[in-house]
């Protein structure tokens, strides 16, 4: 008799806990892996596929499942560092098999050579190319991620990848690159002399000494 009561008790408890767990599974359901979202946020979203996955989100999913974190050339070392911090893995140097870190580029269509074949439009992962069949295509430079995917399909090779020029608004205060010049009022063109020490041209260092 006693063991019969025991079985009944355990069965009732199992039912109760099963119901609680079942309710929790529905109530606190997580739509997708939060780690994937966090990884996806760190990735540069160029959708270039250089990592071997068709886009940044698939690569984020792969990383969450144990893929290496050093396969993203557009993100470079900074992205690897952030991914290492997030996933708690060791930061490795960029895997050269997937490409090397490069300056940011955007695609440019030489418009007079474009034949309007639509192939680059189909290849663009972020819909940054506009145009129609047999009409000239062009690239929305602001939306282009520089992923390089449109260059290969072009039948007339009219797409160039052009490095983005730095504008004054987005300059990084890189004073190392400015050569110090000798100013001669009688000469229009400055004479370049040896490059300055890092902070010799620093404005804030030009202090008045009493």
């Amino acid at each position: 008799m006693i063991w019969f009561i025991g079985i009944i008790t355990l069965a009732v408890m199992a039912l109760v806990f099963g119901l609680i767990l079942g309710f929790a599974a529905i109530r606190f359901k997580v739509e997708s892996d939060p780690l994937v979202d966090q990884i996806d946020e760190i990735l540069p979203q160029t959708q270039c596929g250089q990592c071997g996955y068709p886009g940044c989100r698939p690569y984020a999913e792969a990383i969450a499942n144990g893929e290496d974190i050093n396969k993203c050339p557009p993100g470079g070392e900074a992205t690897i560092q952030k991914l290492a911090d997030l996933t708690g893995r060791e930061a490795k140097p960029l895997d050269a098999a997937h490409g090397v870190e490069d300056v940011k580029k955007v695609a440019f269509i030489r418009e007079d050579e474009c034949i309007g074949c639509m192939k680059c439009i189909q290849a663009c992962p972020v819909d940054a190319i506009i145009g129609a069949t047999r009409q000239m295509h062009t690239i929305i430079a602001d939306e282009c991620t520089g992923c390089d995917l449109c260059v290969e399909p072009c039948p007339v090779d009219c797409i160039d990848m052009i490095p983005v020029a730095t504008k004054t608004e987005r300059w990084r205060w890189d004073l190392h690159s400015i050569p110090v010049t000798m100013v001669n009022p009688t000469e229009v063109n400055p004479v370049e002399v040896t490059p300055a020490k890092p902070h010799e041209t620093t404005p804030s260092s030009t202090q008045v000494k009493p």
Partner: protein
Amino acid sequence: MSKDNSPVKLWRFHGGVQPPERKALANTTPIRTLPLPKVLYIPLRQHIGMSGSLCVQQGERVLRGQALTEPGVYGGLPIHAPTSGLVGEVVEHPSNHPSQIPEPALTLIPDGEHQAIEFQGLANPTALSSLELIQHLHHAGIAGLGGAGFPTAQKLTLARTIELLIINGVECEPYIVSDDRLMREHAATIIRGVVLLQHILQHQQQAPEAVIAVEDNKPEAVAALTAALGNEHPNIRLQVIPTLYPSGGEKQLIQVLTGKQVPARGYPADLGILMQNVGTAFAIATAIDQGQPLMERVVTLTGEAFQQPGTAWVLLGTPIQHLLECGALEPSAQQRIIVGGPMMGYTVADPRTPIIKTTNCILAPNTVELPAAGAESPCIRCGMCEQVCPASLLPQQLLWLAKAKDHPGLAKHNLADCIECGACAYVCPSEIPLVHYYRKAKAEVREEKIEQQQSEIARLRFEARQERLEREKQERLERHKQAAKAREKALAERAKQAAATPDSTPTAATGKTSADPIQAAIARAKAKRAAQQAQAEPSTNEAAELDPQKARVAAAIARAKAKRAEQQQQAEPSNASAAEPVELDPQKARVAAAVARAKAKRAAMAAESATTDDNNPKPAGDPNKP
């Protein structure tokens, strides 16, 4: 109301430094008018915001005061020809910016006549509405002449209910005396500008009170302004404040005068305060009363290397080179040319750099007065920088965080509130260029933010595209399904009809027209084709179901190959046929040429891939292949 020596409570901001003023070098001589330079490089954008759109042609002769750009779609500020001459081309010219990155500038070759258009001042400005006056100022191209060059019209439009108008004549940075000389010589015009600003800012017939703030190291300017004020302007007060760097900063001056602090990431307008520079007030008065747009400004030429230092009216776009000649520069070895003052200015490397609306000083120091910075030593934690910071920040902490690129930490220590005044670097015994580190860190934070925004946009666009492709695929499948269904139905009907025909054939053959057998034949053909297609459809579907991904890809490749082969076969005859209409229509000829070029390239590529096919089993997927 009260004048300079009446007891008005003043406040103090945290910190501040008192560097040697060195203002006597240039403030003893009147503002000069310089000979015309040989060429002007007028940058299309001389202030924050967008540039206007060009409205003159190359080779056109323009007169002084003629607009060179007009507010385009983005409402950029126009620029005006500062003298008469011939318009040259737009060139990429070194910008007047610490980076010296080339920016588009219009070249203007003065013809020496300095002939002006007929300036039309507004006859009765106080009768006009604020909006009309603001628009007039916008078309006169007036930007703030004190610091960052914010378009004045925009600043006045954005201003809400303003209770206090502060006119900034503090000019706290060493060496610079442009505003000082302007106040001494044109006090009346400045007061007129203040009155006009008060009229523009009036709210419910109530003009805001105006305070003109001047440091006590400019007694002559104070005297000139007092004389010009007289007793006619009860609503304008002249306030002398103690000399302390950087009390000319917007936030610092507001604190000195009112005791209020502008909130972080806020604007003075949030406190009901608007600040304008004395130079801007002068430009507003000349723009409204005389109709003169902003074409020139007062620039201080100072430093021991100048034989004739002083102030001068300089046409916008004048290369610095010309000013160096006019000031009789005696350059020493590695002569530095600083735009702005010694605390906040920046060194320019290219003497062709033009003067723009925000340039107030050209400083050419010799190595004794401003020795080149020594080597940077490690921070000794003396804490002097913290004591002088006018924004109450912790410069040491910021330095370490900036070196570690700890952006969240920098945000926590309010890096964005740094006004880059250079007081910390001035007192630093280790000669650490602190502000340089902060500027770099600010740029990095900004870049990171921009990159994050861009990647977010790219992600959204990528996801939207994926969704669209998926939707299109579903629609296509749906269409195919419906088509198949329709065909089945038609087939079934046809079969039913066929079953029914044996009875009706004799009557139809005799009773109906001769067109009937033809139609029947067409229907038969159609049914046959439909049946074939229906057969083909399930077979591909079956294949797809076995290994959907691979089969689809394989099918696509097969289709593409078939298509290409067909096109290659056709290429020859179509080329030949295209040759005929070539002479008829040049448009078509160009198209044909492009097609031919594409085909030739493709043929070449096909040949190449055919040869590589032998060596490499899958050359098409190789991204490194050109």
